[in-house]
């Protein structure tokens, strides 16, 4: 799991921008963001247009690199829990408790 830091000013962001919102430059380097802490968690019960319950846990995770990401949890975790982050082949960000 990586986020993107502006080469010119160091501003880190996720998702990747076209131009840096801080200085306007367009060169970025990938920065490791494989660790973070859970800020908010919601238990998702229902999705629009879908019948029946299909429980999922969706979280806001503050990465150690700075940006916040939206991630799926494998199980319900409390805010403040330290997690590892990885990106699955379909692009889903998954957070696992250490």
């Amino acid at each position, binding site marked *: 799991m990586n986020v993107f830091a502006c080469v010119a000013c160091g501003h880190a962001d996720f*998702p990747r921008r076209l131009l840096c*919102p801080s200085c306007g430059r367009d060169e970025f380097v990938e920065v490791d963001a494989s660790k973070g802490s859970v800020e*908010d968690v919601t238990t998702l019960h229902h999705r629009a*247009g879908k019948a029946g319950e299909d429980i*999922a846990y*969706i979280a806001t995770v503050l990465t150690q690199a700075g940006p916040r990401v*939206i991630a799926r949890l494998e199980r319900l975790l409390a805010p403040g829990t330290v997690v590892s982050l990885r990106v699955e082949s*379909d*692009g889903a*960000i998954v957070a696992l408790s250490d």
Partner: protein
Amino acid sequence: MNDFAAVSIVAAVEVPYTRHAPPGTSTAGLLAQALKAALLQAELSANEVDGLGVASFTLPPDHAIDFAWRAGLRVSWCMDDGHGGASGINLLQHAARAIQAGDANVIVLVSGDHFEAADFTSLVENYNVTTRAHLRPLNTGGPNPLFAMLTQRQMRASQLTREDYAALCIAQREWASVNPLAVYREPLTLDAYLAAPLVAEPLCRFDCVPVVSGANAIVLSSSTHRCAARSPVRIRALRASYNVDHQHGDGLVTGLAGVRDALWRDANLQPADMNLVSVYDDYPSMILAQLNDLGFADEQPNLHTFIHERIASRRLPVNTSGGQLSAGQAGAAAGMHGLVEAITQLRHEAGARQVDDARFAAVSGYGMVQYRYGMCANAVVLERGAAQ
């Protein structure tokens, strides 16, 4: 150039929203119904219209100009707006300036959507590149989990409970009970709210807008046009603020907080002068965020008191149509719904839900979720004009 005196709003209509539209319903057909009803209300013929603005998620592959052709309109000003919950006020801003500048004399703004089940799923999964790349793989089913977490943050920051959000939903349902166009009109009780199925905790079914099919339209003209003589509504001030924090904040403060001083200064009015407010209500937490940002809670000790003493009590009439939460969310029409309600109130044509002596109204728009919350916020202050 903040003076909109040269511009009048001369019609505001709603094509009845339906939860399950009859076979044969189409987005273009709903927009055409809205256009026809708006022209009828303004006592205009189609050949007097020289400007058109359209907001719709499901009109594509057609665009505004295709709709203009299909509706038989010749126009000198034409605009598509893709700003969802902020589209109504965004279109209003641009249309008013076009009339001021002389680019058009009579502009119709239409918005609406008809969703088939697959259309809605496609919309929420492909709302933008970020959603498609980073939220769709999580199978979030749209923005509900994002606003569930935003609501949690607001609950922590302002010591609010689910009962407080229930009070907002119940208050709007009471307004809806006397709005024959609202999709949900039966009374809502606290017990029913608390017993409702959870969607994304803490949000329950009543915190999430019901998707409907429908359309709205408004008409603007120069203030010297004959159609502005009967019952004009004037724009006192309008401000917008988009991408104010680049999604780096907590989403509890919208762009309205940064433009409110300019809005009220331009209007030469204060929140206390407003007879009613229409605020974009995709979720109850966003009602509070926008009202707080606009200054309506400034005199209150906290948001809990504001909810119960001002909104639930109806001392401040908020979303008098029932809002999207009770009237329904007809796609992009949601960005115009509150505007139409405020105009209807200021024209004293709101029937059983009419606010007495309504002279001033504030309307806000909000939306376009990028990754964690909405990017767009805008607001307009409206005044009942004098008939000539």
